């Protein structure tokens, strides 16, 4: 018994094919847009790669790019099918491609949705990656003479000025790290020697921050050193001073920035996803068209009314038909590796 049988006059077939063709082209453009959005995200993540510890988050833009390219190809293919759909002579050569087309199209549509969900799920991973990356950046700030680390100072300074932030969690992170290199410390000075002696690890720690933490909106010239010492500066209260340096931590600033970016991109990808779902649904209509065309084939009068159906057999039987080759493939694998322990099937 056929599922969802419908009658198809010639005019309806023409309209259906034209509508599908237009939709496929729109979806092709949408696929290209997805690819571009993926490239954008990857570029932005790559720009700040020095303050990220690992590249786990790059899976989001990579998947987006793959899905975009695949969607581009699939929908271009679909538009080609639609173009030939009304020509009874050219349509049969596409017959064998329709089943794999449905399967692949569904797969990539689901993958698109998964990417958007993934981008939200990976916030934690991004945050911990930034935490470690920034901590290292601050630690190696002074090592401008060590190969491999000589640009950390420049990167951290530029980052703090651009994102208007200071330190990892906040500016106090600079108090725990020696960020002034020994090359620039006068070891003959008593003050320097005292400070180094008072520290367990022999590090020169100050309650000061680099100049890149300074806030240009402050009404007074920037106070960088002796931040916790109210008496060192005239008319200064460390507890109530808000505008002098940036109070926000760079980790929070970067996470907000990337989350904002991924939200915007996610919104765009969701709309592409909806368009893709629409296209898949119309691909189902294409199935109607295919079956209708099969009825026309062999008839000399191509403009007759024909019947189309969704599935030739019932739903269960069609699913079994699809899964059979997959199971056979896995079972075959099972038979070959009989001697070993049974592999875990998907």
């Amino acid at each position, binding site marked *: 018994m056929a599922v969802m049988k419908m009658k198809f006059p010639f005019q309806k077939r023409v309209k259906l094919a034209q509508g599908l063709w237009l939709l496929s082209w729109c979806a092709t453009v949408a696929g290209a847009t997805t690819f571009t959005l993926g490239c954008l995200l990857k570029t932005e993540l790559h720009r700040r790669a020095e303050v990220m510890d690992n590249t786990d988050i790059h899976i989001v833009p990579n998947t987006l790019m793959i899905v975009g390219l695949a969607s581009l190809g699939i929908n271009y293919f679909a538009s080609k099918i639609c173009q030939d759909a009304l020509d009874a002579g050219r349509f049969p050569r596409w017959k064998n491609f329709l089943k794999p087309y449905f399967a692949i199209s569904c797969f990539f549509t689901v993958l698109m949705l998964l990417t958007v969900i993934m981008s939200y799920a990976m916030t934690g991973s991004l945050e911990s990656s930034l935490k470690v990356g920034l901590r290292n950046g601050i630690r190696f700030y002074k090592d401008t003479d060590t190969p491999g680390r000589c640009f950390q100072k420049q990167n951290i300074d530029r980052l703090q000025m651009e994102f208007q932030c200071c330190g990892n969690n906040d500016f106090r992170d600079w108090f725990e790290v020696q960020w002034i*290199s020994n090359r620039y410390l006068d070891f003959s000075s008593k003050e320097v020697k005292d400070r180094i002696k008072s520290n367990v690890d022999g590090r020169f720690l100050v309650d000061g921050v680099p100049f890149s933490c300074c806030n240009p909106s402050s009404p007074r010239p920037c106070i960088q050193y002796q931040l916790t010492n109210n008496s060192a500066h005239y008319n200064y209260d460390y507890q109530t001073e808000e505008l002098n340096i940036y109070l926000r931590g760079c980790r929070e600033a970067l996470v907000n920035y990337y989350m904002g970016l991924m939200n915007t991109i996610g919104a765009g990808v969701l709309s592409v996803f909806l368009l893709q779902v629409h296209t898949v649904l119309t691909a189902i209509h294409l199935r109607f068209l295919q079956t209708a065309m099969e009825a026309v084939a062999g008839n000399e009068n191509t403009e007759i009314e024909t019947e189309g159906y969704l599935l030739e057999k019932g739903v269960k039987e069609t699913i079994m038909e699809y899964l059979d080759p997959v199971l056979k493939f896995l079972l075959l694998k099972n038979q070959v590796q009989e001697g070993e322990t049974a592999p875990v099937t998907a």
Partner: protein
Amino acid sequence: MAVGKVTFTKAEREKLAEVLWLLNWISVVTGAILFGLGIFLKVEIQKWQEVMSEQGILYVPHMLITTGLAACGINYLGSKICLDCADTNKFLRWKLVMMPYIVCTFFFTACVLAGALLCYSIRGQLEESLYQGLRNAMRFYKDTDTPGRCYLKRTLDLLQIQFQCCGISGYRDWFQVQWISGRYLDMTDGAVVDRLRSNVEGKYLMDSVPFSCCSTISPRPCVQHRLSSASSDFSYDHQRQPLNLWRRGCGQALLDHYTGVMQSIGLTVLLIWLFELLVLTGVRYLQTAMENVLRLGDPESESDGWILEKSLAETACYNFDIIKNLGKCYQVDDDPNINVPSVAAELEVPSQQVQVQS
């Protein structure tokens, strides 16, 4: 003899009309580009207008904006005219409008050229305005509590950070202004009072610079204070530490930035001007060709098109005469029926001398 005479067949006239229709539409697009360039320049100038002493330079983007809008309108009208010019009957509708339209377009094209040349010649005025503006900005850097000047500190800091510059011609300009407000100076401190007293005008001058002068590419943490004494910071010798502060002056940096922007805009506007000139020439040829066809009476025949009917000198004299005579409200005619008393008075015979033949 006519200037630039070309003969057109009917087919060529129609082709010319089509091509001009397309070119006019492209000109509408270039007019929109001109408008966009004007807006862009205005935005760029307004970004840093606090460090410019006068706003006179804004007339360049304003001119570009008006010219762009005019270009859109004129070329849209032109496309409508050219579309109708292919057919002699439809051309009659536009016959009276054509000449004024061409004159308007000619003046408008001259405006576009003037706009392009302005972009190149504005540099001197810009330099003056920038240096004066920066000098004021540095003087009022500390006045963050004075209305009208409270954002100068922020603007100047952001300027020095973004353009990677310090001071007007160099970092030493900061040594000559008091950039720390009296609100943050401890007047009970002996050192402060000494410094104030040692200055003629009672200003608190230091050999220090604000934090925004610090260079990000320096390998050492920024040395902002006590810059002129070599022994101030360990191993710091300002001659041999070129990377510590930004070396370039902000006057030069801003001037280079704006000159670059204006030169690119000026070049684009020049190209647009050349294109407009081409379109104008085409429209003039089409107009003269169509008028000659009407004069000959046969729509299918060939006709001549030209830029000027007589030579340049004759056309200039002719137009000059028209302008001269525009002022006169009473014209002297050669009509014999009109009694012109001034010359003929002596020739008149008194009536009693006329002998009546009976």
